């Protein structure tokens, strides 16, 4: 009955909510299972940052490429990578997205345009320049999005890529996910320039800062920037100011954070809650509809964990496949 | 002036790229009597090792070349003369002999075969041409190599035949330095390409000399365009029976490395030591060219599928009455020498002992003599 006042259809809003809820549920579950010792290696959780990945990825198709970071689960899910395959990968199973050979930090699905999470900070930026170059050479209107944290934004690879993308006028969007911490170090201390918009300006491209916890703000700004790139307008930078609900990695005691900081962020800047409240308050979506999604997502994640645990480990012979073994 | 009674024996030049050769050993002692065609010495080049046969007769008066030593092409390595020629004249001859500059494998060399390219409907085809060395052109002779070969298979043939004919040697499509695309990988297709080449080169009629698959192509050409073919010389030819060593065809087509190719090539010769490093390398270089593998596979599928020759032309050729010579190496392991008699009385058939499939190289002197004799018969022959 109520007119939809949002720039997205009800279906798209539901899709956005489902994506964000899936990321949240996935990460919360990893948090619990990691603590139980079920998961090998390290995981870096994206909880609290869901609006950024989702708001951006809503504008992309499988032909658009993204290069992710070590904190990549949210990017994967928002780009359409199968949740079961992701969970199995994180559990090191042969049914994983990378057949158990990549793990949390290397989940990729090139068929979905997901060029990989990356364990090397700042390494995705040059790669996405190449993806954008390929799109430009083919003329297929594809764009490339690279994500970088405020910490890795200081990497030479990232800064060199800003220059290269501007020089070659590539359809690239550099997304700085500024959660305030380079691992444990404060962004204000570690980033000399203080403003990512200034950095972008310095490389001859526009930069925009948005509230990364506001799905609509990210979605609208990303939409304009991506459209600009797709139309040949060249690269741009989008800084999303966001919040990190967990530590740098699981097991991080976070003693560097102020007392009550995380609790306050969860109470006041939870992007998932804000999106839900906004659409309910506008009368576009009923609370029960969102609760139904919550239930479905919980079942999905539960099933993904169950399937991952039940899945076979890679065979010993898999050690030597998928690479030219020179010796 | 050189004494006409003294005959120099020099380091031979086999093919355009040869600039020097290693004398590996003498087969005649000094003072021995030498008849025309006698095996005199062995020479190893970077491509192949072969025997040098006497082009004259006489007494081997002086042996200058040391075994194990490398000499430039045309370097004087021995002297042949009748017994009554005084030693002093021989010494004077040797002193006066002007050895050519070493390393001077210049392309401007007089009278040697030259490589050319002809634009034909089958694409660009490479060929070598050597004008007759004695008198005006003489009849045209066209040499057609076999499966996977090229015009250098006629290394020892071209110069010998050029004494009395204008000699052409062709790289068939898919081979040598000719275009690697094969519009039609059948005998008919190759024959069409040969005729197209003859048109482009301005050859109305030629004596066709074909080796192996090239023999079958020659026969097909003689059947399709009898007016263009003066005679046939079929050397270890395909098309005379169904048997063929399929392992050779498959092995040659598939081999990608020296290790794989060398044993395959050894099948071609009675004396397997003739398969030197350079021969293998040159064939590998050919096989690596884009399009070659596809061409060989297409030919193999069209001509030798399932381990048997697809087209047997013996009966049809025998019926033409065209002057035909069949030559075989007794130890041919690719196509059996038994096929030599397939044409019955319609052809002269010679089987040469101690030679394999590459008989025109392994017994070059004998094959050349047979070819000269066959082609030297009245060119008009009985075909028309």
């Amino acid at each position: 009955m109520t007119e939809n006042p949002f720039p997205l259809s009800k279906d798209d809003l539901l899709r956005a909510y489902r994506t964000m809820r899936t990321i949240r549920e996935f990460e919360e579950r990893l948090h619990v299972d990691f603590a139980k010792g079920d998961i090998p290696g390290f995981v870096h959780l994206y909880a609290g940052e869901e609006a950024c990945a989702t708001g951006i990825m809503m504008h992309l198709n499988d032909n658009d490429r993204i290069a992710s970071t070590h904190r990549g689960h949210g990017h994967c899910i928002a780009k359409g990578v199968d949740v079961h395959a992701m969970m199995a990968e994180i559990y090191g199973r042969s049914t994983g997205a990378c057949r158990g050979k990549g793990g949390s930090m290397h989940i990729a699905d090139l068929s979905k345009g997901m060029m990989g999470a990356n364990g090397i900070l700042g390494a995705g930026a040059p790669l996405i320049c190449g993806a954008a170059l390929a799109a430009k050479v083919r003329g297929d209107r594809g764009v490339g999005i690279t994500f970088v944290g405020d910490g890795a934004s200081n990497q030479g690879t990232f800064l060199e890529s800003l220059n290269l993308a501007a020089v070659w006028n590539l359809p690239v969007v550099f997304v700085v996910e500024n959660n305030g911490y380079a691992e444990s170090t404060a962004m204000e201390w570690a980033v000399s320039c203080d403003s990512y918009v200034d950095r972008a300006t310095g490389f001859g491209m526009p930069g925009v800062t948005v509230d990364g916890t506001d799905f609509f703000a990210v979605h609208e700004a990303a939409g304009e920037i991506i459209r600009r790139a797709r139309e040949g307008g060249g690269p741009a930078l989008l800084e999303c100011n966001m919040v990190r609900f967990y530590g740098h990695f699981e097991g991080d005691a976070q003693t560097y954070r102020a007392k009550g900081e995380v609790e306050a962020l969860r109470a006041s800047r939870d992007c998932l809650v804000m999106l839900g409240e906004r659409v309910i308050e506008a009368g576009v979506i009923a609370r029960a509809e969102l609760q139904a999604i919550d239930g479905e997502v919980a079942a999905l994640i539960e099933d993904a964990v169950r399937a991952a645990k039940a899945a076979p480990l890679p065979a010993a012979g898999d050690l030597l496949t998928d690479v030219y073994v020179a010796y | 002036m050189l004494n006409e009674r003294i005959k120099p024996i020099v380091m031979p030049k086999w093919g355009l790229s040869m600039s020097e050769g290693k004398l590996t050993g003498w087969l005649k002692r000094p003072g021995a009597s030498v008849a025309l065609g006698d095996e005199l010495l062995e020479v190893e080049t970077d491509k192949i090792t072969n025997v040098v046969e006497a082009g004259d007769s006489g007494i081997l008066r002086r042996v200058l070349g040391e075994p194990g030593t490398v000499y430039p092409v045309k370097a004087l390595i021995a002297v042949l003369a009748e017994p009554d020629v005084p030693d002093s004249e021989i010494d004077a001859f040797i002193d006066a002999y002007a050895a050519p500059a070493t390393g001077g494998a210049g392309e401007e060399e007089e009278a040697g075969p030259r490589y050319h390219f002809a634009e034909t409907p089958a694409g660009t085809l490479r060929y070598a041409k050597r004008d007759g060395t004695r008198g005006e052109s003489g009849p045209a002779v066209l040499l057609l190599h076999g499966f996977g070969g090229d015009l250098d298979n006629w290394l020892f043939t071209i110069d010998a035949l050029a004494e009395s004919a204008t000699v052409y040697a062709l790289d068939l499509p898919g081979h040598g330095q000719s275009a690697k695309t094969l519009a039609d990988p059948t005998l008919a297709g190759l024959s069409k390409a040969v005729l197209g080449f003859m048109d482009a080169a301005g050859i109305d009629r030629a004596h066709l000399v074909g080796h192996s698959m090239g023999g079958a192509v020659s026969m097909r050409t003689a059947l399709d365009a009898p007016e263009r073919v003066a005679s046939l010389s079929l050397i270890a030819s395909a098309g005379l029976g169904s048997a063929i060593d399929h392992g050779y065809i498959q092995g040659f087509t598939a081999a990608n490395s020296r290790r794989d190719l060398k044993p395959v090539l050894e099948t071609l010769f009675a004396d397997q030591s003739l398969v030197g490093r350079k021969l293998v390398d040159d064939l590998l270089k050919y096989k690596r060219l884009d399009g070659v593998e596809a061409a060989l596979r297409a030919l193999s599928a069209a001509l030798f599928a399932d381990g048997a020759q697809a087209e047997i032309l013996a009966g049809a050729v025998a019926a033409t009455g065209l002057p035909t010579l069949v030559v075989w190496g007794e130890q041919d392991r690719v196509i059996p020498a038994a096929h030599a008699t397939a044409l019955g009385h319609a052809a002269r058939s010679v089987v040469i002992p101690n030679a394999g499939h590459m008989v025109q190289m392994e017994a070059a002197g004998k094959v050349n003599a047979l070819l000269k004799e066959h082609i030297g018969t009245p060119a008009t022959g009985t075909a028309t």
Partner: protein
Amino acid sequence: MTPVVGIVANPVSARDIRRVVANAANLQVTDRANILLRVLAALRACGVAEVLMMPEKGGIRGHVERGVARARAHGEDPYPAIHPVAMPVTGTVEDTHRATRAMRQAGVSAIVVLGGDGTHRAVAAQCGAVPIAGISTGTNNAFPDHREPTITGLATGLAVTGRVPPHIAFAGNKRIDVAINGETPSEIALVDVALVAERYIGARALWRTENFRELYVTFADPEVIGMSAIAGLLEPVTRGESGGLMVRLSPAGQTSPPSGPRPGGTILRAPIAPGMMAAVGVTDWRRMPAGVPFVPEVEAGTIALDGERELSFTARDRLSLTLRDDAFRTVNVSGCMRHAAENRLLTGTPVPVSADL
């Protein structure tokens, strides 16, 4: 007691989507710091020895401190002492509110504001009677004048040291109070209030003209950029005169009722953002007298204050808008400088030039 000047410099203004949708300018942090150094030098030249500055984590303060230290290393001391306001930094508009209140309580004589319309609005909401000297950080502002900041600093210095009399040095400004459900005021605007149909804040900036519905301006200046330009191109209203203008807008190109322009409606081409000439459907407009509450016709949508979407409202919310004259004070830079020239305020020994020479 020597006068103290407050300084509010916003490190994050002019970072929004207008950089992409309208080729708007960005003022880099280093440039913002350099502007402050120029203002500080001018203030010091006029005798201001101390300033109170809003702390921030955007990097301005670091650059300013480096500039001050470098001058001292030269043996120079051209700047006033800088005291940061003791307060936590949140990186939100709340910092501006809190700093402004603290400055007012500390008794500053004026506040120099470096920022966009939004920063000025935040200061104006809390400054009470303390005059504001505004400096623009971008190209998209209507409220602060576009002027070399050194001059703004000089004028402020002359004003707060009493060398320009207050009736010349300071001027009154209008504002619009927005009351939602009876709260007075819930929000304020210095230049314009726009009611738009979309009901989300999104990237804040206004550029989709098809959603424009109603516009209220304190002044209508055809020489500025933004929503005020729409009104200014219809019927100019100066900053000095009483009252403003109210404009009813509709999607451009729609000509038939009920949602299209009413009979007599028109389409206006206006520079609603830098480089962005947009077609705006105008239904009608009228004067907005001071002190008279206006109740919008739009039932639900978003309220944009000074060009930025700030909050959405629904049919359940009761809105009223009231323009107030003399709501807050600003430094009259032109007036100060003219007075300074006429009275040789910056001459060591005033020597009037003889007409005979």
